[in-house]
């Protein structure tokens, strides 16, 4: 089974994000970038499937600027076999990305696609569902457990009320949640090996996809901040303030 893992390069989760003074977006220059944490979980799962003999080849694909190469190298060092960069200077939206990924899935004849449930930059939580729709495939979203048996994939999903399990006809699309696995760190030998692995570069035009944005960003601003509170000295004082000052209990 060939597995495709779409990965996104985003601002590192530990970086304090700053809004640009001209309100056009967030500051990206000289900011530490990393693989979206949910995508790391997707790569890890695919590598485990390969180690278990379920997956035959893992292709990672990232759409964005030329530096997406670096993110792909990280995934190759974790154990993916091959990479594809879809280079685009246009800001990509989930629908455009889903269309690009559909073209790659068809080109590669992939049988399983594992995406993150959400990219922590735009917090959209859309791409996997959109890709499944465009392919006409089943979708397992927010997945925390996977089992494949007789051409059916059982996915346990994290939902608002608890957990839910669905059986998906394969091929299918999965989006993974935080508790599916704990991604590995790449070892030094594997980082060296990854340098020799193949990365192809494509453009949206090569794939015949129009990625013209549908949304216009009017402005990006800092959210209203909370006003600083007070420290209380004791539990008794806390309860008194909640009762008599804030009047919330």
């Amino acid at each position, binding site marked *: 089974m060939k597995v495709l893992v779409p990965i996104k390069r985003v601002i590192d989760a530990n970086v304090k994000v700053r809004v640009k003074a001209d309100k056009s977006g967030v500051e990206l220059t000289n900011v530490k970038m990393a693989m979206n944490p949910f995508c790391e979980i997707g790569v890890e799962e695919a590598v485990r499937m390969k180690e278990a003999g379920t997956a035959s080849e893992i292709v990672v694909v990232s759409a964005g600027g030329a530096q997406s190469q670096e993110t792909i190298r990280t995934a190759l060092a974790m154990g993916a076999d091959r990479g594809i960069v879809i280079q685009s200077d246009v800001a990509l939206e989930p*629908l455009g990305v889903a269309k690009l990924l559909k073209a790659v899935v068809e080109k590669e004849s992939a049988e399983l696609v594992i995406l993150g449930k959400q990219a922590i930059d735009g917090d959209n939580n859309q791409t996997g*569902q959109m890709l499944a729709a465009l392919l006409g495939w*089943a979708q397992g979203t*927010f997945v925390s457990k996977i089992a494949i048996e007789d051409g059916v994939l059982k996915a346990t999903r*994290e939902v608002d009320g608890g957990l839910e399990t669905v059986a*998906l006809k394969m091929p299918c699309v999965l989006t993974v949640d935080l508790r599916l696995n704990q991604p590995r760190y790449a070892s030094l030998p594997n980082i060296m090996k990854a340098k020799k692995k193949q990365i192809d570069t494509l453009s949206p035009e090569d794939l015949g996809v129009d990625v013209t944005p549908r949304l216009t960003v009017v402005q990006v601003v800092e959210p209203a901040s909370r006003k600083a509170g007070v420290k209380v000295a004791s539990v*008794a004082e806390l309860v008194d303030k909640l009762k008599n000052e804030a009047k*919330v209990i």
Partner: protein
Amino acid sequence: MSVLIVAEHDNAGLKPATLNTVTAAGQVGGDIVLLIAGTDCAAAAAAAAKVAGVAKVLVADAPEYATMLAENLAPLIVKLAPDYSHILAPATTFGKNLLPRAAALLDVQQISDISGIVDADTFVRPIYAGNAEATVKSGDAIKVVTIRATAFDPAPEDGGSAATETVEGTGDSGLSTFVGQELTKSERPELTTAGIVISGGRGMQSGENFAMLERIADKLGAAVGASRAAVDAGFVPNDYQVGQTGKVVAPELYIAIGISGAIQHLAGMKDSKVIVAINKDEEAPIFQVADYGLVADLFQAVPELEKELG
């Protein structure tokens, strides 16, 4: 203009976030139509017809909608879409799973988890875990939008008398089936709608210790939540998680116990009216958003709090 809301319900009644979505639809303007797709969902449809502001209820009562599979529901939304300028759903796991699938089939770029409406084409949404707020304008013919429930008041459950109309089902996709569920049972209020939430973090040290928070929750009529670290450690189930990738809450009172206050956690609770933090580390970032902070060992402070509350 006319707005179709894909209602979240359990066949017997509406889920609370549907009511907040109705309020958001009211801000868009135009007629508000609620879609109830389910199996034996007459009770939910009746509840929908009573919601103030709703003009019409569409009922698709068919076996293929029993377990709310996106593969079955998305074609129904696509079939109904041409009559509407907007399609809305709550940004719950139900709406997040379903609406992008419908949007892609309609060739529309969805706008996720909005917290504000500027005009019928322009919406405000938090990005980067709430570190920034983007205002975006859609150029698509139909706007497909999910609604952050905490940013809109719930519409009154009574006062409406909408007409009900039946729509045909679209059949089973044959792509997926529902196997089962493990729902967290609780007598306490639902996390996302509770007036008071008390959450525990890694500092709680174990699942057993959450009993301390549960006793306080019962005194206050509160819901219990948690940080990701507490969920990852297995102290409490996944549906307790508050944050960027869990639930968003905005109660009157949020009490954070043994939670450091990482930006991803703040993303899910910083719109609470009053925030209390109990943490032994006076440098913990949670104190930067807390209205009332108590620097103390939680294993002393929490039992004391229980006593003080009588």
